[in-house]
């Protein structure tokens, strides 16, 4: 029964799907740019993702993957806010360890991004949001092309000074909720100086989603990343 079986007799013009960071899809077309958003619980990752979707959805074909601690909460938030049609939002289940799913074992996230491209593509951009985790959580380069680390002023103005892989190495550091700084006694100047010391030339954005400019600076940075990705 096993002499002439399906593995030896199977022929296909398409190769099997890509393994991880390949820049092309199985059919040879260029895949979407993938940007990860990580950071501590409550720093405003999901709100930033929602604001980015609002800002970019008219000019780009985009989709979102969430990695929640409790299965689908962040995805449900994005659905309630109606920032994208439901078929453009995928939730990955993380077994109580969201950092594992974005760094050590990225297979479920890779499947989610590939399925989104297959089902609603072609896509320009996929935002991969980490579940709220700690300061050491970063995305694997096998999963995303660039990553944003989101912290907030209410989490303590010493976070940039403490460093850690997220603050130090993320392609963009976002210091969120600047409107709260006077109320929680956070010193924005000190945060900026500490971030500069930790990150040298890597960019930092101070943002208040309630302010006039909202997510505009981060959206511009994303546009820049996309232009660079397309030029590569």
């Amino acid at each position, binding site marked *: 029964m096993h002499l002439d*079986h399906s*593995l030896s007799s199977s022929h296909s013009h398409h190769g*099997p*799907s890509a393994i991880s960071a390949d820049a092309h899809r199985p059919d040879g077309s260029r895949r979407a740019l993938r940007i990860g958003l990580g950071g501590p619980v409550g720093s405003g990752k999901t709100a930033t993702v929602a604001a980015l979707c609002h800002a970019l959805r008219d000019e780009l074909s985009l989709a979102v993957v969430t990695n929640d601690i409790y299965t689908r909460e962040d995805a449900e938030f994005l659905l309630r806010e109606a920032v994208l049609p439901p078929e453009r939002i995928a939730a*990955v289940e993380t077994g109580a360890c969201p950092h594992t799913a974005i760094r050590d074992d990225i297979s479920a996230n890779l499947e989610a991004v590939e399925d989104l491209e297959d089902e609603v593509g072609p896509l320009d951009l996929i935002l991969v949001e980490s579940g709220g985790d700690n300061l050491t959580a970063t995305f694997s380069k096998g999963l995303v092309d660039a990553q944003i680390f989101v912290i907030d002023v209410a989490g303590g103005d010493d976070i940039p000074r403490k460093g850690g892989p997220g603050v130090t190495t993320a392609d963009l550091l976002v210091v969120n909720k600047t409107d709260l700084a006077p109320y929680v006694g956070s010193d924005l100047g000190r945060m900026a100086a500490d971030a500069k010391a930790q990150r040298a030339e890597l960019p930092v954005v101070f943002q208040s989603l309630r302010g006039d400019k909202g997510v505009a600076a981060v959206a511009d940075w994303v546009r820049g990343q996309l232009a660079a990705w397309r030029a590569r």
Partner: protein
Amino acid sequence: MTRAALLVLADGRFPAGGHAHSGGAEAAVKAGRITDAASLEEFCRGRLHTAGLVSAALAAAAALGLDPVELDEAAEARTPSPALRTAARRLGRQMMRAARATWPHPELDALARLFPKGAHQPVVLGVAARAAGLGPADAAYCSAYESVSGAATATVRLLSLDPFDATGVLARLAPELDRVALAAADAARRAVDEGVDALPARSAPLLEIGAEAHAAWAVRLFAS
């Protein structure tokens, strides 16, 4: 080839998606059937001799080179719960990705083409073992161990169980794991002549029922 490849394949950190699955432990914890190390041990023992034996035999048969399409059909018939079939295919797809990156092999590529959304995980595991130069008993060991180690790790997270107690559970199951892996490999060898019906079909009613309950929860930590 090297036997040490088995350590790579069986490592809990092998990036094939297992960390997000509890092997039914999350449902059993919520139902109050797993409350401590002793009940975890009985849970794992029951799982080992049912789902563990079945998956070990499927993996061994795939490692021997039996037709993966027939084996996948056998796995479907042995998995009445659609939630468990979905989980098995998802994990199979993730195992496929990790295996192709680790041990590139034309049989893995062919299997990926046949099942773009994933074959049942033990079938992929068996072909991966074959690609790594491992034999049917190795594949059976790996699958049988996985059938209990995932549940033990998940229970550490779910109950804040002492990790030393959970590891002790796995160590105490080792003699039974030996027996299950060898029985699975024997069944796989019989299946070469007698067909896939010679593979075991041992079932665990509460794993099937619990998996359906779990899939219906709005909030959960693990995918299965």
